[in-house]
């Protein structure tokens, strides 16, 4: 099977221009997401998390690379595979985990669940369960940035599956027409649920579909956090300069099933193992860090701290009470 993504280790020589502190920060954030997701998977298995639970493991470089170029006031909106985006936006892992367990201390007081979390304070506008619906919403956030004459941009993430939804193209058209400052980030993890991109999508690369709307695009190795950062820097500059939207297609891969209940019969174990072995975004950055003077010991310390944070979040999420009965009728409308 043809692989869309690069199987080589990230370009180690390109790291010279990067601040080592920034690299380590990105490493820690990717690791935090991975450990969070592993714990979420574990709690799901224990029956502590119900419903759907879509894990982000494997795709961490995408959101962390892009987040590294965001400025105060930028907004993010994504699909139901949203835990990584929330952690990247610096939302508290305790609040996210408590939402997964359906407790009152969750970001949505336990009323949203895995797919529906928000933080105005952190510029995270969901967490949307309808495939593709977040794309016009992201353009709407960009509309507000422009309307308010800010220098901010909107980042609208969606998957390769959503890239076939009609409302995505309605949004491309309007965003280009009105020069909205929005980066459309296609997280192409090769499978829309169980259907591979080549069985679901005509044409070549998904990003190229922006051509017809006059939208600039780049196709990026989404397993390489530095490549992601570089490309999103260019995209953000374009948007902030008032030149309209930009499409980034991130070639990435999810290690886990579509959701926790996915047996993943549509791909071979070997395919997944190959990617993990050769293209893991966290491992790639780790190699760079090690060549830049950071020691295994330093990274072990980071890892331990992150594990501790996640364990605390898991305990918090299980100890937080369920929402009180009167929450049932709250927050339907604003009085």
């Amino acid at each position, binding site marked *: 099977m043809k692989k869309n993504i690069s199987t080589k280790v990230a370009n180690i020589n390109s790291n010279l221009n990067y601040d080592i502190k920034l690299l380590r920060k990105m490493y820690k954030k990717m690791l935090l997401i991975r450990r969070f997701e592993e714990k979420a998977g574990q709690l799901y298995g224990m029956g502590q998390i119900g419903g759907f639970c879509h894990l982000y493991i494997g795709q961490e470089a995408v959101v962390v690379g892009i987040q590294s170029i965001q400025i105060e006031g930028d*907004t993010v*909106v994504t699909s139901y595979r949203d835990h990584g985006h929330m952690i990247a936006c610096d939302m508290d892992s305790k609040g996210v985990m408590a939402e997964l367990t359906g407790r009152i201390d*969750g*970001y*949505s*007081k*336990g*009323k*949203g*669940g895995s797919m*529906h*979390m*928000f*933080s*105005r304070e952190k510029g995270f*506008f*969901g*967490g*949307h*369960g*309808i495939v593709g*619906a977040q*794309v*016009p*919403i*992201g*353009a*709407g*956030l*960009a*509309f*507000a*940035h422009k*309307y308010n004459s800010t220098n901010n941009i*909107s980042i609208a993430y969606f998957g390769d599956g959503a890239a076939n939804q*009609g*409302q995505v193209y*309605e*949004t491309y*058209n*309007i965003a280009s*027409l009105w020069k909205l400052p929005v980066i459309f980030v296609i997280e192409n993890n090769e499978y829309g649920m169980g259907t591979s991109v080549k069985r679901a999508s005509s044409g070549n690369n998904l990003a190229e579909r922006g051509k017809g709307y006059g939208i600039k695009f780049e196709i990026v190795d989404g397993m390489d956090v530095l490549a992601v950062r570089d490309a999103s820097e260019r995209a953000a500059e374009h948007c902030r300069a008032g030149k309209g939207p930009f499409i980034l297609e991130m070639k990435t891969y999810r290690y886990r099933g579509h959701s926790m209940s996915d047996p993943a019969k549509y791909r071979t174990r070997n395919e997944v193992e190959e990617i993990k072995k050769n293209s893991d975004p966290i491992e790639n950055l780790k190699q760079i860090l090690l060549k830049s003077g950071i020691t295994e010991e330093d990274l072990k310390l980071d890892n331990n701290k992150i594990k501790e944070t996640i364990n605390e979040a898991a305990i918090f999420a299980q100890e937080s009470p369920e929402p009180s009965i009167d929450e049932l009728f*709250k*927050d*339907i*409308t*604003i009085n």
Partner: protein
Amino acid sequence: MSFEILMPALSPTMEEGTLSKWLVKEGDEVVSGDLIAEIETDKATMEIEAVEDGKIGKLLVEEGDQSIKVNTPIAILLNENEQIQTLVKQPINEKTEAAETLEFNVTSNDFSDELQDITPLNYKKITVREALRDAMSEEMRLDNNVFIMGEEVAEYQGAYKVTQGLLDEFGDKRVIDTPITEHGFAGIGVGAAFANLKPIVEFMTFNFAMQAIDQIINSAAKTLYMSGGQMGCPIVFRGPNGAASRVGAQHSHCYASWYAHCPGLKVIAPWSSEDAKGLLKSAIRDPNPIIFLENEVLYGQSFDCPEDENFLIPIGKAKIEKVGSDVTIVAFSIMVGKSLEAAEILKDIGIDAEVINLRTLRPLDTETILNSVKKTNRVVTCEEGFPFSGIGAEISAVINENVFDWLDAPVTRVAGKDVPMPYAANLEKLALPQVDDIVNACKKVCYKN
């Protein structure tokens, strides 16, 4: 043989128009297709063409004549041998049969009552269309975060002229033409509302809002709850709903019960100019997603409307348009006018009907309905939409659950027929609830024949 040129109907709901300019004069030769006049309707100014060859014998109306009913003769076309002298000028504004059936004009003061909680000082007679426009422009002056977008709202001045003049006053940053992509622009509106702007999204008709239903329901209506109260969505979706005239099933659907079904939305259906203005202003100020169901047939109707810019009508409160003691008629939107007409007819046969204008469908003012039922003990609900799972069905259930023992007759529904709207004039009339249907239903629940 001479040929009468008639005032044409230039839109499905046009009843009358102004002859703004003659492009020919008496004695001119015209051939079919020549432009002969400019007609201004309530929606647009349009040129009309000669449909026959001949000589203009007589112009029957003056330039600037207003309110010329559709089908009134406006000029006489002669064949070559005819003389102008043989013609007699006919009176203008003579009501034709077609125009008469559409003729309907009620002012809210005809049924004055003491129950109105706000009593503004000055009233002015304006159309529902103007009331809606005034509501938007007043609120846009007060709050820079309010903007309007939709198809043809800006340069075209509104497909139904509701947004007339807004582009000139507020500019293209705040009055925005969209492509014909309801799903996309509704979603952009929702995103802008999440970011604390206050969009007014106009749908050319609510039939087209079906393209955007996912964003309206799944995004706008549910997100506040799913976010534990964080993500308010202060947006107004507005446009004409229900039947217009002869536009077929895909342009005539009443979606009142669809939207009223969904928690997270507020659903408003104004009838008069006063309703339109006071409720739309309240809707724009409300922090929730609002479905504002207008009616194309009502746009051109005039009613007394308070001039005060502070005039607001509370969302969730019905208005008793006419006090009565024998039967309660519960209606909304265009059916309020028909119910008031029915009440007049019923008066002549000794039935004193109370007419409730719901104004808001969600949240429903059950208190006003139930109190009225306790007084009259009989109820007829009226709506243009389908009866099955309709607003009337809901009202009937609420009455049964709360005041069953007060009823002296079964709650009776008057509604549109359970069929897609037919195009043929006779069938369309049959499909829509008429005044007679309301009269008959009231007689039935009062056990009078």
